């Protein structure tokens, strides 16, 4: 019965709980499991089901006992267990008398009468939260342990109208599937392993360069302009121990830097973030979205061609724009680069996309 209980030593650290998607969701557990979950030793109020941290649940059950005062407790039975649900009555339902007085002064508004409609709405809401024994209840709320009894502090609750048991049947079919696919799967909440250091260094490098372009609004650059940015990454690599001073395929720090830079530039070109307007001996790169001439060229192409009959209805297709821009501006504009430009123009409302790959100007 308690085989899935988690020992204090096995609890993942509380910092990692947010990584488990179930932690943020209202878990649809069986009441039996909610009652049997072990409480965390790190943070009281959080419980564990099969190594998943749980604090919110969602249940569907029959009301088998009711006690009404200012709050409204009831015991919900879902066939696997019975749990106390504390459902707080909303303040809105206490204002019944006030709205009744307004009844007679309302005829001026024609068919749709706001006050009456609001009253009907409040009435409907009240009916849905007034439950009797035997009715089907849906509760979403936080799990709490009070006086050694586990209960659900309902944040949302309502009576389910289920005359032919369709909702209950659907729930019975769905919950085992949820268990198999999510709750019973153990999740490894490990802090991100460093992984392959060369891969993470590469992605860090790309991000550093992209941030630099954005912050300094770089329009054009040469590789040595950005080389310095990557130096800290390469030079902070752990130094090899004296005994290992004869790496077979070892690269000096400078060579590593050059290689990294080359790889980053290649990757940024593939993504379309940068391009070379003119391919010459002088290695000059243009930052796509900062290239005013390119943006203007694309905008001109679209606004002129959208007027033509051929493109008037649907707009210009991206490939058409690409070939026009290549003729007009630079042969080296890639589709990826063009897509970034189009996105930027659309964000500033200079052009409008009429479909996934068509653009036009109004």
């Amino acid at each position: 019965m308690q085989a899935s209980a988690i020992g204090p030593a096995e609890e993942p650290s509380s910092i990692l709980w947010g990584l488990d998607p179930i932690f943020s969701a209202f878990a649809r557990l069986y009441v039996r499991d909610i009652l049997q979950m072990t409480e965390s030793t790190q943070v009281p109020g959080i419980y564990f089901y099969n190594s998943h941290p749980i604090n919110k649940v969602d249940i569907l059950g029959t009301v088998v006992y009711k006690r009404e005062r200012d709050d409204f407790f009831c015991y919900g039975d879902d066939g696997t267990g019975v749990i106390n649900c504390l459902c707080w009555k909303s303040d809105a339902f206490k204002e019944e008398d006030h709205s009744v007085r307004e009844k007679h002064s309302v005829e001026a508004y024609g068919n749709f009468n706001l006050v009456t409609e609001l009253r009907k709405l409040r009435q409907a809401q009240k009916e849905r939260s007034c439950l009797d024994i035997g009715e089907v209840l849906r509760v979403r709320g936080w799990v709490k342990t009070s006086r050694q009894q586990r209960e659900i502090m309902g944040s949302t609750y309502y009576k389910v109208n289920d005359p032919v048991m369709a909702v209950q049947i659907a729930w019975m079919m769905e919950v085992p599937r949820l268990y198999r696919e999510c709750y019973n799967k153990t999740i490894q909440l490990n802090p991100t392993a460093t992984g392959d250091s060369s891969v993470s260094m590469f992605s860090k490098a790309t991000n550093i360069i992209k941030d630099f372009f954005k912050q300094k609004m770089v329009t054009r650059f040469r590789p040595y302009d950005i080389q310095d940015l990557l130096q800290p990454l390469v030079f902070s690599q752990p130094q090899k121990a004296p005994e290992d001073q004869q790496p077979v395929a070892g690269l000096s720090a400078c060579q590593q830097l050059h290689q990294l830079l080359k790889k980053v530039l290649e990757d940024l070109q593939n993504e379309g973030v940068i391009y070379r307007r003119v391919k010459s001996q002088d290695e000059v790169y243009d930052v796509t979205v900062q290239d005013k001439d390119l943006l203007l060229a694309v905008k001109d192409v679209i606004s002129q061609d959208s007027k033509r009959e051929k493109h008037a209805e649907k707009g210009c297709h991206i490939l058409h724009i690409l070939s026009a821009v290549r003729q007009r501006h630079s042969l080296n504009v890639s589709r990826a680069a063009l897509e970034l430009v189009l996105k930027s123009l659309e964000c500033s409302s200079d052009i409008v996309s009429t479909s996934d790959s068509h653009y036009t100007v109004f």
Partner: protein
Amino acid sequence: MLPAAAVFHFPWEINSGAVKDGESVRTFGRLVCYQPEESRATLSAHHAANEHTVVIHTLFVEPFNPILGAQYLVLGEIENAEEVDVRVQARVLNCIDGVNVALLQKAINEQRSFFRERECTQDGVAQPGDAT
């Protein structure tokens, strides 16, 4: 003290004595007769070419509008007194006419097989520990 959970049982299981006296159950069937003077109702269900009936003691759920021939869901405790057949002391009696009985049966079986599967894996996990 919280009441016990009412586990779903089929009407044919109740009559066969598979459920212990005093246990809370949930079951269903078509209302075939109702005797208000004795607070006694009979639900019937068809299974494997047989008609299975369950007697319900309706004292706690009266008055209710009896619709003969309609499907009902009952939640209550088993009473296994010697002179009478097994009957259910109802705490909840809901009319669920229009329910897809085959689908309901399927859902109950699905839930049962899930719990069985879970117990098997848990026993499987516990075994190595026990063996040592």
